[in-house]
């Protein structure tokens, strides 16, 4: 992925966090973490950001359950999830492909998805690989469902799906994704070909705007500084060693 694509993704995700109070980011998620830090820079300290497994950046002192307890208390407004597979109903599969338990290919497991997807108001699905292998018609295993019947307690759920090609917004009422924007250089036909599920789209969808000069300065400045601390290899690879002037 090019540094400019990385910056675009950081910028577009940061836009989804504007105005929120608190964002948590899972382990090994440099782009979502960078987006959260960028949103915080733009918001003058809001949202507050907790990055898991980040040593000095952690503000949890009650053990591994604290993230989930906080989410249950309503203290986390946004979180990020990925998926081995994501389908058109926003069901996500983090377990593997093929039958369960003896999968064709086994992945790590569901982590906290089966809980956080229900209780965090704004869950952003993030998966750079955008192919018919990752975006499927129906997931092989539902680690966490995209929607729930009305009697199920569910203050949270999917908000958007950000990939290397485009941004989808999730329409909870219809239970379907709608294409929100195409990243520069990608076409609607290409996205249809590489997406295993059907989705709604305008005939001529907007293009994801490139980050402004101001945003680029923030990414290269304070955001890169935080990234260097928590994800040094990622920062070196995609953001170089520039410093903001």
């Amino acid at each position: 992925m090019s540094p400019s694509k990385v910056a675009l993704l950081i910028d577009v995700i940061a836009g989804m966090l504007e105005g929120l109070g608190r964002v948590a980011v899972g382990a090994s998620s440099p782009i979502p973490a960078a987006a959260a830090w960028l949103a915080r820079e733009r918001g003058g300290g809001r949202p507050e950001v907790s990055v898991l497994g980040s040593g000095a950046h952690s503000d949890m002192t009650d053990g591994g359950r604290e993230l989930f307890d906080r989410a249950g208390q309503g203290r986390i407004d946004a979180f990020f999830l990925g998926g081995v597979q994501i389908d058109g109903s926003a069901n996500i599969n983090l377990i593997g492909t093929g039958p369960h338990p003896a999968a064709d290919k086994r992945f790590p497991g569901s982590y906290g998805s089966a809980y956080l997807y229900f209780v965090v108001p704004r869950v952003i699905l993030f998966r750079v690989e955008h192919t018919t292998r990752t975006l499927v018609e129906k997931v092989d295993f539902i680690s966490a469902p995209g929607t729930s019947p009305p009697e199920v307690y569910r203050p949270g759920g999917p908000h958007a799906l950000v990939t290397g090609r485009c941004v989808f917004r999730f329409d909870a009422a219809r239970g379907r994704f709608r294409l929100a924007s195409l990243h520069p250089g990608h076409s609607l036909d290409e996205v249809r070909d590489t997406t295993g599920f059907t989705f709604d789209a305008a005939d001529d969808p907007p293009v994801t705007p490139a980050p402004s000069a101001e945003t680029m300065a923030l990414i290269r400045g304070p955001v890169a500084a935080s990234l260097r601390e928590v994800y040094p290899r990622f920062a070196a690879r995609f953001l170089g060693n520039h410093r903001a002037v």
Partner: protein
Amino acid sequence: MTETLSLDRLAGRVADGAMLALPPDYSYVPMAAVYALVRRGVRDLHLLTVPQAGIAADLLIGAGCVATVETAAVSLGELGNAPRFAAAVEGGDVAIRDSTCPAIHAALQAAEKGVPFMPLRGLIGSDLLRVRPDWQVIDNPMADGGGDPIVVLPALRPDVALFHAPYADEHGNVWLGARRELVTMAHAARETLVTVEEVRPGGLLADETLAAGTLPALYVAGLAEAPQGAWPLGLTGCYEPDREHLAEYARLAASEEGFEEYCGENLIANEANVMKGLRAAE
């Protein structure tokens, strides 16, 4: 009363078939004890990861020590999927009880509190419920008129909780800092075994500041000194992970033959390292 043991005697206290709880990769993983368990050839473990795990679980599974793994995830983190775990699940060589992080935390809290179950939101509509017949959906008894389904999870009471900590005092009190998932593990388990970098004189409970991060000896059945006992993982505040070794593990463990090679090279070497550290400390 806490018993002080050698590393191998400590590993010997984990019986074949035991439910063994291990911490996540970011939290005080007892790697020296895990190598010792592989050396002694423990069998048929019900391995519970709290709530996920990495190389420790992959090693035990690859070495054939595990009958059942109950986990929210097993992964080598930045180094990718856990190869022996994945191969064993794909091949049906271990039984897998898929879970989710807060379910493992809550089920341990149930055991900690001596209650038979704990409720948890979420989960309804996940296939996890389908593959976990021990999880049940009940009607929330607090909802007026009912109609509010909620999952209840049975308590998880490990036979043994095992972890590595920076130090203990001479009474068997163990300093864990803010790693409170280990406190819950120890409360929930029948027996807790701990390796430490060192045993220090004095008493942790008498110091207000240190007491806040201390697991009382009451819960600690066995304690062994194991310098560098988290290696090749790191120990926050003490040493960094040996990233080169971990990458080598990931490379070798990708195949069964490579895994055998890794074990051949490291199981004995690790024991020797711990012994060297102990002698140096004397």
